[in-house]
């Protein structure tokens, strides 16, 4: 379970977010530049909120009051970046096993690499380099790379925006299926309403009102969209 309540100072306004979610898909919906990605980065520890707290499964990852700020590599959070951020100098197999080899805290029961490659249907791509992959394939590699470490939470920053509409639909169902399988919270950022409707178990609107405050507020079991 993820529980957070933070305030982030952005360039032109302050963003406040309160999120409580269980093992479901939360979709953050909103126009570009309103801070959705920043929320993800704060959860991952790549950026720091101005104040507040972030708790994941009884561990406090961040607390401005108690001066706690766990470094990214210890948070056990997976992050799928907007353009996947796959390592161009490594093969698919090496990309996926990167976390396994270099992780400071190895996962308790790491997933077998063959298993994860098969699950995501990329085992035949093991020795290919990133340049040779299609958008959909890259996305799967990115997912494999994070899931192999059994993260407690998965963050996805506009994971489908680079895909064509057919692949998109296919991947959307696969993502839903994946989340059910792994049974961890997924937070997904998108600007596509339809996608939000299709994917999200719960969704939150990030908007900027006249008084220059953005709000994200979602509690567990909130209105199911769709």
């Amino acid at each position, binding site marked *: 379970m993820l529980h957070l309540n933070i305030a982030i100072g952005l360039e032109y306004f302050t963003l406040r977010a309160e999120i409580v979610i269980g093992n479901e898909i939360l979709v953050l919906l909103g126009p570009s530049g309103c801070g959705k990605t920043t929320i993800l980065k704060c959860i*991952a*520890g*790549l950026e720091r909120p101005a104040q507040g707290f972030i708790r994941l499964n009884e561990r406090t990852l961040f607390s401005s009051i108690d001066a706690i700020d766990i*470094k*990214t*590599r*210890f*948070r056990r*959070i*997976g*992050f799928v*970046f907007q*353009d996947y*951020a*796959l*390592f*161009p*100098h490594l093969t698919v197999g090496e990309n996926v096993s*990167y*976390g396994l080899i*270099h*992780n*400071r*805290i190895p996962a308790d029961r790491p997933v077998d690499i063959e298993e994860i490659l098969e699950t995501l249907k990329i085992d035949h791509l093991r020795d290919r*380099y990133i*340049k*040779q992959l299609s958008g959909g394939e890259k996305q799967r590699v990115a997912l494999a*790379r*994070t899931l192999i*470490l059994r993260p407690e939470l998965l963050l996805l920053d506009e994971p489908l925006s680079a895909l064509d509409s057919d692949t998109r639909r296919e991947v959307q169902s696969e993502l839903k299926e994946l989340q059910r399988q792994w049974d961890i919270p997924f937070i997904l950022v998108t600007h596509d309403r339809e996608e939000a409707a299709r994917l999200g178990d719960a969704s939150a609107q990030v908007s900027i009102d006249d008084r220059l405050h953005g709000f994200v507020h979602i509690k567990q079991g909130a209105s199911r969209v769709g």
Partner: protein
Amino acid sequence: MDLNPVWLSIKVSLIAVSIVFVIGTLLAVLMLRASFQGKSILESLILVPLVLPPSVAGFLLLILFGKHGPFGRVLDMVGIQVIFSWRAAVIASAVVALPLMYQSVKAALESVDPKLEQAARTLGAGELTLLRTVTLPLAWPGFISGAVLAFARSLGEFGATLMISGNIPGETQTIPLAIYTMSQGGDLKAAGVLVAILLATSFSLVLSLNIWKKRSVLWP
């Protein structure tokens, strides 16, 4: 034809580049990763040899490493003499080559997509690990570039070297100094030979670097 200047120049430049490789890399990493006050000032100090007249640079080095200078006195206590020895030539070359190495390395490190480094962090890599496994493998061409440019620049160092190395034939008379001495003394043929060697070397270094840059496909 006395080719001593050639061997001397090569030796001096190789040593200078090795020094500059290490220092330039450390400084570039420091600039990009650490946070502290006065970054602009430090960077300007590193780059200033690019625009400083050689005589000024030579004068400053003379003051710093001379018998009564801050560095000179310390080194003297350890028994190391800088001024009027090959070490002076190395230092002069290193000072003018450092900005080139530093800029190449910094640009190379900056060119690595920060998202890749962030991804590595989310996958559990520590800072040194990600430097070693992600940043450096992607940035190493810049290091090579920097080293080659630094070497070529070292070979041609004249003004500051002339001021602090003493122009001692066989010991500190590098190629540019020898060319100057010979041409001023009227031995234009000998000077011409050295000029040709220097030109050919620098030119082919820069040319091969450019060709390599264009052609290299670092990963498929």
